[in-house]
């Protein structure tokens, strides 16, 4: 619901909002420029002094105005010819033209009505309303994504366009909300929807009938400071019934032109004060600094509109159409999908296709619309659920758990729950786990035990599918082919080989960066932007399923580097380890924001074994700021597979790497990386106390051993690996 409230106003109003905010940002400069260039009155100067000086310089003066920026303008007639000038209040002399700035006038008309009169004003008011809705719905989405309002500025993960969208939005949203609210008020006032009470006092009916009082002896003008002045009108020459009319930031009053006596005063009404404050907050006139800040925030909107559209398009592309979806009431198998980015729909489509061709009647629906009463023929329910943020419901699963909780009786047809997630994140498959727990609490029969799919792995999915097939008594082969990212041809430039003597050939492969188009550079697609720790997907010849390798280089390094160990029956690793310089492979970048060292000066503890050194070496290579890094590296044999051995000592000499501890498993006294950790427990504990972040890369067994060793080291400190993980200080990239 909230997302729809964010999506549709955004898409419909994007172009309008871009025009509105660009013109608004340009306009915000004028009050500041005015404030800096207009000659200002000295403190305490009275209106009487100012008016007397101006009258000396321009005897035919009719009106004096002071803008909120302090600029004073006088208007006069001399021999029937009109004149006007910006006035220096110190002398009363003209110092500049009073003509309105044509650029400012053009921008103002564009900003408030698109040069289309009242129709344009209404369009812009609708645009302001759209911006307000976007600001509110966007804030709710940011809070939800971050895991609460208190985590408003929590660090972000995800693809660049989505990240940029939120980064800018959370800075700009206060300004955008203020500007759109004030705009709506001003539109309502323009169209007379807000009553503007008249506060001008009745024009004096009794005047002295005399003329020619010296201005300096008019009490009201002598008492009023220039800083409070809005407007002073002189009596019309020859009209003895006319008076001096003074408007200030407090109200309006009249003075007799013969005696100087005050002839009435009315304060501004509350409504007028509110209206003036709102005008100031919107235009920055009288609050130039605020205006500039609001203008800068408004500049975020064109970027927000662009990135928002990119996010929407990416989501749309990734959500496949389900062909041959059976009606909800007739289907025997009900697939309920909880998807955020759309990739879970792809898995649902694969499952739908496989079950349908096995003769089942299958209905696919979002989890959010779940209602057992709709599925009279259901024999089984299968939930495929991703997770959003810290174990929250993804977009198409909102309200599912609440609904499940309130069901009087759960369906008799059994349930299977499959979670989709990324082990690199805390609370892996947290939402799906909660669904499974709640179903169990409610006494729903389980068709299959709860299971998970890590990082959209087709292998995990096929394995789970075989289990499902067994439970259903059918032969179910799930061949999930995620919509393949666009690959590019990568040319190998160099390779370094290790471990041949150990029957475990491992290579550091370096590919040239492919040419990157301007569009990709702008949108951060493809190889335009990647960092160590991101993943290189390689599609081997004769297969459509890509294999992922951790990147050991950054796009700024100018090359793509991975570490590959030849697996006994591996198709992809065999092809890669046989490449000679000049040979090519097909690859693409997959971002892996969960496995990054992050910014800051906190020490890093990097722990890796075997090919797991790859991304860690990349982090060290990029450590130009010489953040303290302690590397624990496990290998089999010191002579044969000390990957990056030479670089590591170079990096240590340069200060990129503070300390290196190695563990060698095939030595006289075999040692594993967790043993090296235990040996350095004092140092490790000290680093953690200093706020260190721990990053582990390598095989699953090694990672489990590391967690165990860390648990021992942490327990005297009253800490656990889980606690560090929850705080984002302990991340793994395991395979």
């Amino acid at each position: 619901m909230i997302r729809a409230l964010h999506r549709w106003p955004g898409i419909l109003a994007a172009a309008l909002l871009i025009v509105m905010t660009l013109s608004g940002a340009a306009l915000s400069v004028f009050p500041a420029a005015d404030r800096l260039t207009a000659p200002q009155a000295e403190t305490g100067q009275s209106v009487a002094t100012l008016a007397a000086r101006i009258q000396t310089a321009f005897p035919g003066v009719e009106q004096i105005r002071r803008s909120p920026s302090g600029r004073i303008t006088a208007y006069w007639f001399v021999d029937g010819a009109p004149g006007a000038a910006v006035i220096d209040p110190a002398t009363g002399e003209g110092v500049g033209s009073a003509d309105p700035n044509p650029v400012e006038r053009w921008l103002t008309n564009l900003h408030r009505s698109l040069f289309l009169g009242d129709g344009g004003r209404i369009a812009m008011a609708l645009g302001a309303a759209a911006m307000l809705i976007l600001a509110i719905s966007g804030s709710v989405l940011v809070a939800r994504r971050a895991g609460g309002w208190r985590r408003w500025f929590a660090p972000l993960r995800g693809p660049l366009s989505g990240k940029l969208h939120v980064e800018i939005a959370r800075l700009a949203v206060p300004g955008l909300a203020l500007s759109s609210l004030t705009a709506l008020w001003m539109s309502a006032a323009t169209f007379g929807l807000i009553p503007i009470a008249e506060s001008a006092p009745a024009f004096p009916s009794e005047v002295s009938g005399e003329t020619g009082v010296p201005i300096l002896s008019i009490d009201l003008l002598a008492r009023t400071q220039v800083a409070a002045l809005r407007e002073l009108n002189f009596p019309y020459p020859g009209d003895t019934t006319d008076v001096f009319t003074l408007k200030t930031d407090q109200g309006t009053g009249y003075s007799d032109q013969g005696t100087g006596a005050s002839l009435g005063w009315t304060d501004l009404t509350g409504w007028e004060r509110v209206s003036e404050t709102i005008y100031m907050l919107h235009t920055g006139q009288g609050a130039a600094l605020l205006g500039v800040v609001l203008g800068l925030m408004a500049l975020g909107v064109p970027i927000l509109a662009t990135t928002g559209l990119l996010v929407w398009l990416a989501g749309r592309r990734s959500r496949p159409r389900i062909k041959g979806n059976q009606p909800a009431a007739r289907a025997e198998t009900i697939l309920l999908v909880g998807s955020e980015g759309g990739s879970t729909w792809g898995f649902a489509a694969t499952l739908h296709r496989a079950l349908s061709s096995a003769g089942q009647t299958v209905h696919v629906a979002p989890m959010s619309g779940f209602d057992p009463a709709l599925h009279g023929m259901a024999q089984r329910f299968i939930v495929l659920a991703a997770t959003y943020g810290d174990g929250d419901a993804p977009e198409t699963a909102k309200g599912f758990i609440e609904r499940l909780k309130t069901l009087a009786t759960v369906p008799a047809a059994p349930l299977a729950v499959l979670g989709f997630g990324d082990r690199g994140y805390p609370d892996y498959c947290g939402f799906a786990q909660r669904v499974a727990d709640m179903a169990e609490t409610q006494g729903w029969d389980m068709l299959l035990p709860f299971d998970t799919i890590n990082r959209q792995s087709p292998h995990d999915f096929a394995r789970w599918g075989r289990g499902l097939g067994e439970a259903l008594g059918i032969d179910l082969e799930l061949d999930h082919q995620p919509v393949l990212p666009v690959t590019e041809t990568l040319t190998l430039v160099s390779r370094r080989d290790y471990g041949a003597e150990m029957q475990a050939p491992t290579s550091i492969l370096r590919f040239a960066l492919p040419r990157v188009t301007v569009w990709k550079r702008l949108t951060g697609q493809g190889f335009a932007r990647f960092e160590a720790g991101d993943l290189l997907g390689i599609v081997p010849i004769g297969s459509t399923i890509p294999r992922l390798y951790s990147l050991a280089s950054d796009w700024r390094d100018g090359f793509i580097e991975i570490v590959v160990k030849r697996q006994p029956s591996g198709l992809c690793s065999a092809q890669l380890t046989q490449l000679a310089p000049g040979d090519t492979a097909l690859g693409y970048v997959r971002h892996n924001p969960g496995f990054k060292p992050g910014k800051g000066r906190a020490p890093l503890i990097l722990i890796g074994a075997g090919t797991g050194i790859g991304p860690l070496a990349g982090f060290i290579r990029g450590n130009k700021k010489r953040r303290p890094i302690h590397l624990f590296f496990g290998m089999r044999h010191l002579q044969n597979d000390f990957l990056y051995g030479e670089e590591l000592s170079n990096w240590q000499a340069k200060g990129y790497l503070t300390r290196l501890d190695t563990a060698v498993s095939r030595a006289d006294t075999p040692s594993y990386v967790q043993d090296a950790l235990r040996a350095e427990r004092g140092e490790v504990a000290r680093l953690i106390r200093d706020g260190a972040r721990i990053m582990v890369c390598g095989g699953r067994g090694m990672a489990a051993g590391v967690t165990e060793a860390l648990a021992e080291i942490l327990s005297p400190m009253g800490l656990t690996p889980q606690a560090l993980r929850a705080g984002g200080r302990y991340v793994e990239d395991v395979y």
Partner: protein
Amino acid sequence: MKTLLATLALTTALTLPGLALARPVTLTTTLTNYGGDGAYLAFYVTDASGAYAGSLWMAGGRSRYYTHLSDWHRATAGDTAQIDGITGASVGAGRTLEITLDLADALFDAGYTLRIDAAVEDMRDSPNEVSVPLTTDGAGTAVSGRRYIADFTYDM
């Protein structure tokens, strides 16, 4: 010069007691290129003693700007009932406004004066922009305004 035409035939533009006979009068107002937004113009009539007699036309629809038409505003205390049904759009710089209305015969050659107040956003207010006696002889004679009006004519 571009002509913005607002030709209107009003049965009774100015209702005064005992004035039954009326004739169509065309008011033609051409603005100078003063380099600003559309001008607000108030057309009204004062009697021989200078007292307000009634309004003929208001160019400009937003009442909150009427205080800038200061003589008209002073005479009517900003009473928008005075211009009910005789309000049109503001007039752009360099454009011409043409209004035809039925004016009572008794307004002519009887000391009445037709006045126009003008105001433009962010520019000077110009009350008494035009002030011209209503006489049968004066019909067809162009007069110029003080600041915004290049020429003004009434034709019978």
